[in-house]
């Protein structure tokens, strides 16, 4: 029996992504955002999470994906960080999947640029690939 890991999965544009479930504090529906003029366009704004102010990052912009879908109904995947929680905005929330670690494979060399920095690799699931998001790089913005 191979070792297994749990991943919280979500959809961002056409990508099916996952992050290790223990990094996720919670998943909540769209919140009221306060925009931050002057901030990077990846930073969508600030929201009030039960009295705590949380910065929301737009993963689609972070991943350089075309943003054609409506931006209103983005879900929040709230990630724990040492600097307080940070929310990642995604299009749709999937299940928490338990995957076999031996199904993991690092990305091919042909994956270049920003996606290469942000995607550690993928789990080969039946019929599709679950891309593993490198949370720390995803939440680090060039200043």
């Amino acid at each position, binding site marked *: 029996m191979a070792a297994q890991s749990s991943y919280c999965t979500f959809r961002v544009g056409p990508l099916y992504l996952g992050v290790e479930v223990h990094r996720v504090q919670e998943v909540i529906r769209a919140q009221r955002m306060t925009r*931050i003029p002057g901030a990077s366009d990846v930073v969508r704004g600030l929201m*009030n999470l039960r009295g705590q102010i949380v910065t929301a990052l737009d993963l689609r912009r972070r991943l350089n994906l075309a943003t054609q879908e409506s931006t209103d109904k983005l879900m929040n995947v709230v990630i724990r960080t040492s600097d307080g929680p940070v929310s990642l905005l995604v299009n749709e929330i999937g299940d928490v999947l338990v995957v076999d670690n031996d199904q993991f494979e690092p990305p091919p060399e042909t994956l270049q640029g920003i996606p290469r920095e942000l995607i550690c690799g993928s789990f080969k699931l039946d019929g599709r690939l679950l891309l593993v998001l490198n949370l720390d790089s995803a939440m680090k913005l060039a200043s």
Partner: protein
Amino acid sequence: MLDEIVKEFLVESYENLDQLDRDLMALEETPDDRSRLSSIFRTIHTIKGTSGFLAFPTLEHVTHVGENLLVKLRDGELRLTADITSGLLSMVDAVRAILGHIEAVGTEGDASYEQLISVLDDLRNGKTPARPELKANQPTEIPVEEVVKALESTSSSGNGGETSSGKKPGKKSTGAKTPKKVTAKDKSAAAKVKEPADAVAASSDNSSPNEQREEADEEPKVTRAVVSSNNRNSNESGQGESTGGNASVSDSSVRIDVHLLDKLMNLVGELVLARNQILQFSQGTDDAGMTAASQRLNLITTELQEGVMKTRMQPIRNAWSKLPRVVRDLSISCGKQVQVQMEGAETELDKTILEAIKDPLTHIVRNSVDHGIEPPHVRASAGKPVEGTLWLRAYHEGGQVIIEISDDGGGINVDRVRNKAVEKGLVTLDQATSMSDREATQLILLPGFSTAEKVTNVSGRGVGMDVVKTNVEKIGGTLDIHSSMGQGTTLRIKIPLTLAIVPALVVTCSGDRYCIPQVSLLELVRLEAERARRDIELMHSVPVYRLRGQLLPLVYLDEELNLRPRRTHDERRAADIVNMVVLQAEDRQFGLVVDQINDTQEIVVKPLGQHIKGITVYAGSTIMGDGTVSLILDVMGIAQQAHVLSEHAGRQFLDGNAGKNEQSRIGDSWLIVDPKDGTRAAIQLSTVSRLEEIRLDAIEKTGRSQVVQYRGQIMPLVSISEFGQVEPDESGSISLVVYNNGQRNVGVVVGRIVDIVNQSDEGVGQQSEETRIIAGRVTRIVDLDILARNA
């Protein structure tokens, strides 16, 4: 009631005694530790001295004998033995007992310490006293009746368990009734009562009074209650009503973990937010009960907030206390003589702020001693006292704390600073020469300025001053330098009283609400309809507003936040309503134009996350009454971004944006006018006090000269034109440049105002005193002062 002075003596002595216990313990390990011996000696000596002064003869006597013993130890005539330690510890206990008595009833009591004294004397003379004597001696010392009486008087008000309840009854082993009752009634008290008895019996290990004190502190209520009820029973009342709120002096303060305070502060912050929300809801209802309750909540929250804030306040002395030492060490190593003077050491500051300014303060003080104050021979030849003085001043001003560090040293050599800044490529020669001295002084705060050591040596200051500035700004403060050559330098730090909860003005801009901390707020101006169109004027491309005669530069918030492109001239004038928040940034003022001014609110400042920390226009964020998040504007940041502050120009030069800043430096700005006689004339903008337009028919005559009525005065007119004519333009109005020579206003008729250009001396072609080439045309330079003399 105890005198303040006695109270102070008690608190101080208790602290010293605790230290003494520890010192004596440690001394047993290392009996030859002279410094520790000296410290013990000093402590006892202090108590002796003070008790003599306060007329406590018994205490004085006991400590005197102890002191004699200690002298021998200190001088090495005696070596510390376990017996001597015990003797000294007994003395400490005796002192503590007397102090307890003083605290309780105000007198020393009539207990005799003859035996202890003789034991100490014996020890001093090298004899070994019989141990039992010591033991027997010890317990009889405290007359329980006295204590009981004292307790009677104070018990109702919460006397601490320390001095009276646990220890003394315990020591009283000669048959007092009271303590026995205590033991019978209360277990915890019983435990305490037992322990000291054992401790005294053991005699050589007297650390227990200390422990026991702590224990007693833990549950003073229980013990006290029992003791007092006993007292009542024994009908020994007499001085019952004498004291009210006289809690044991040393118990009236408690040490609290700062983290706990931080947590409390956070909770209060949350409560303030919740209160704001409830207030907002209650405004929407007609329910009188709800309104009343929320008002009450409002009041209580405010009081609670103030109370918790107070717990975090500490006198600035705490940050200053180590500075004299720093100065002393440094001045010795530099071969200088420096004295430190402090004023306002009681000024209170939030703990976090206090911590944050400690290092910058040390840095500034070091700089002052190292570079500011001259060596004695230089001072002597400059006619100053050989000993330099460093002043530390702190005071409150307008909700802020001002800390000044000044010295009477050599001051900052501004020209050298200029040269060095140019040398280091921080500013161009051009910029350096056109800078005022004040601006040049601020150059030492630039990051690049500090790195080269040579700069420091010649300029007088600058090691890491940028770090100091950054640290001060981090806590919302500002740093300002004033220096005059040969006279000295003053650094002024302005910091907010507290960081966590601040009153703020809420404004709306492009549909979002922003908070502006009220410390920077001066006033609000609202222009409507015609005035909005008329009163916003342009100085070249820069919008300004005349606020009581002063030109106030205007900054449009939405433009600064890049929410919309810069307004064109027409757009600015098309506004129906202009809401302006007049703000203070350092010593400059500017008007921040916003869409709407909402109200003021207490807001809880929450720090910005890592992704937005770098944006200088925000100071933090907060949660509003309706639960949405709002950004808190950083007035300094906005002022800098909008180039309101010209010293920031220095920073901008580093980025190579020199061109942008020229408007802000008025020194070489020229007002170009067309005198309508085919020539061009230029007036140095800094000499212009106002620009006015008047109707031709406003001009009146007195004798041969033309005048207008201007602000209730008669203002003579002169013309810039060589032909002396005053001609209106097409619309029938006349442009005036108002010049004030310090006594009166003179109106200079200039024909038409063309432009304001920035041009420094460099790059100007052939030039003389009177003409220059400005903006490609030969231009006559007009000196308003000369013109005005002819008026």
